[in-house]
């Protein structure tokens, strides 16, 4: 199963929790330039189900954390709005927006979370969380496009944890009572047993949960405290992937990239109404046209009949056997207890319920187009 290549581990980075993962018996794999836990001894299937039933703890310190500073919120928001289609001017203090950095022709450079600092002395500061595999590209892009008086400050000394699942609130509130009061897509400065942190009510699993940004020197304490809770298990990248796939959430480099627009990717909901009309972001002409006339292709959910998973790259055919698209993420959904996938199809075949064929191991598997949300979201209301 090896590739025969020279040991790639030599150049891999480690998060501040590397020793904790090894101590817990994690299987470590290369991911986005980091040596990351793909699973712990519990295994992908049980880790996945645990997160949906109780609370799963993820080390996501490989992700990029940065802050964009400007003279005040309106100025900083307007500056970043020149790069993304999300409504940032309308973002209230302590609220989070999901949006995308776009190329000049409307392709997705990266998708990211933007948080407006809660206010006071922090006014004019937008905090960014970007994908590990894209952070160098994102930072260079933002710095090239935004000059003075705006300043991008990268925070490589911050670690990031995600605590996800129906018991996440109860578990976190024992150490950080402020967390329980947060609304979905809201964030605040807080303390975890006296340790300075920044807590967001957000995540990548479809469940209620939190992301906790904390200094790399303090993260092991937070990690150990949370993993000591009987309702918490550490969860690896394997289950992170199956959880987000069942929830219909995109993975950069697979479901979205510089060739896909947010409209094609079924992310139109994240484009502010004012922004659709006013524009002022890269690729507005294409995106406005795609919203008005429909895109040529669209990201949809794909549900294979039977039990066999269809993986990334699988050809999708129409009833007549013509290729109409490809699967971009696919596998087995432990909570759906069925194979689940997403991919792009020509717009004429994108309606929910459309019958399609999947070419798996030279055989045609029957499948149907569905909503990509295979497991209903349980976000905090």
């Amino acid at each position, binding site marked *: 199963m*090896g590739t025969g290549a020279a040991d790639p581990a030599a150049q891999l980075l480690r998060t501040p929790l590397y020793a904790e993962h090894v101590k817990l018996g994690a299987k470590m794999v290369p991911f986005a330039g980091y040596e990351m836990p*793909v699973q712990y001894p519990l295994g*992908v*299937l049980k880790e996945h189900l645990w997160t949906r039933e109780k609370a799963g703890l993820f080390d996501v310190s490989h992700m990029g954390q940065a802050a964009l500073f400007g003279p005040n919120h309106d100025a900083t928001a307007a500056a970043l709005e020149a790069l993304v289609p999300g409504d940032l001017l309308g973002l209230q203090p302590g609220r989070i927006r999901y949006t995308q950095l776009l190329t000049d022709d409307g392709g997705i450079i990266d998708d990211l979370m933007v948080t407006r600092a809660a206010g006071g002395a922090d006014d004019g500061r937008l905090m960014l969380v970007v994908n590990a595999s894209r952070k160098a590209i994102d930072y260079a892009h933002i710095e090239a496009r935004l000059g003075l008086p705006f300043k991008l400050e990268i925070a490589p000394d911050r670690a990031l944890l995600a605590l996800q699942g129906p018991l996440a609130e109860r578990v976190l509130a024992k150490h950080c009572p402020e967390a329980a009061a947060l609304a979905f897509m809201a964030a605040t400065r807080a303390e975890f047993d006296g340790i300075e942190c920044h807590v967001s009510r957000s995540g990548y699993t479809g469940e209620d949960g939190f992301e906790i940004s904390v200094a790399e020197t303090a993260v092991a304490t937070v990690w150990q405290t949370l993993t000591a809770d009987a309702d918490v298990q550490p969860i690896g990248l394997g289950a992170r992937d199956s959880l987000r796939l069942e929830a219909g959430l995109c993975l950069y480099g697979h479901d979205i990239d510089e060739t896909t627009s947010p409209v094609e990717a079924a992310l139109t909901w994240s484009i502010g109404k004012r922004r659709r009309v006013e524009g002022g972001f890269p690729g507005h002409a294409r995106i406005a046209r795609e919203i008005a006339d429909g895109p040529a292709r669209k990201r949809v959910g794909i549900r294979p009949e039977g*039990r066999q998973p269809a*993986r990334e790259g699988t050809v999708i055919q129409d009833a007549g056997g013509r290729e109409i698209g490809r699967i971009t993420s696919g*596998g087995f959904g432990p909570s759906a207890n069925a194979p689940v996938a997403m991919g792009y199809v020509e717009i004429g075949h994108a309606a929910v319920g459309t019958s399609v064929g999947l070419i798996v191991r030279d055989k045609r598997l029957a499948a149907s187009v569905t909503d990509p949300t295979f497991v209903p979201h349980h976000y905090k209301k």
Partner: protein
Amino acid sequence: MTKRYTKDHEWVEVDGDVATIGITEHAQEQLGDVVFVELPSVGKQVSRGGAAAVVESVKAASDVYAPLTGEVVAVNDAIVADPAKVNQDAESGAWFMKVKLADKGELDGLMDKAGYDAFVAGS
């Protein structure tokens, strides 16, 4: 009966001229939670080194290769109905197929337990 092993992590147990074939304990550990198994039809001719079955875990799909040439005379439908059995009982109850051997001489190319353990330790 003694088991023999392949470098593709299958085990073989021979009774007369029929070989029972499955995947090893090491293989199931590497795969993780098995969620799908596809077996050949009874009567199918398989040849040594050719893909004969499919096993898929949450994360990955793998071919199971025929370690020996012959005709499939039985398959284990229980692991199709409940693929998790492959994780629970890989080297016994979760066998994949029984093959009537065309050439028992092919058995000489397989490893014994000590040889396989050394192969796994060194890979």
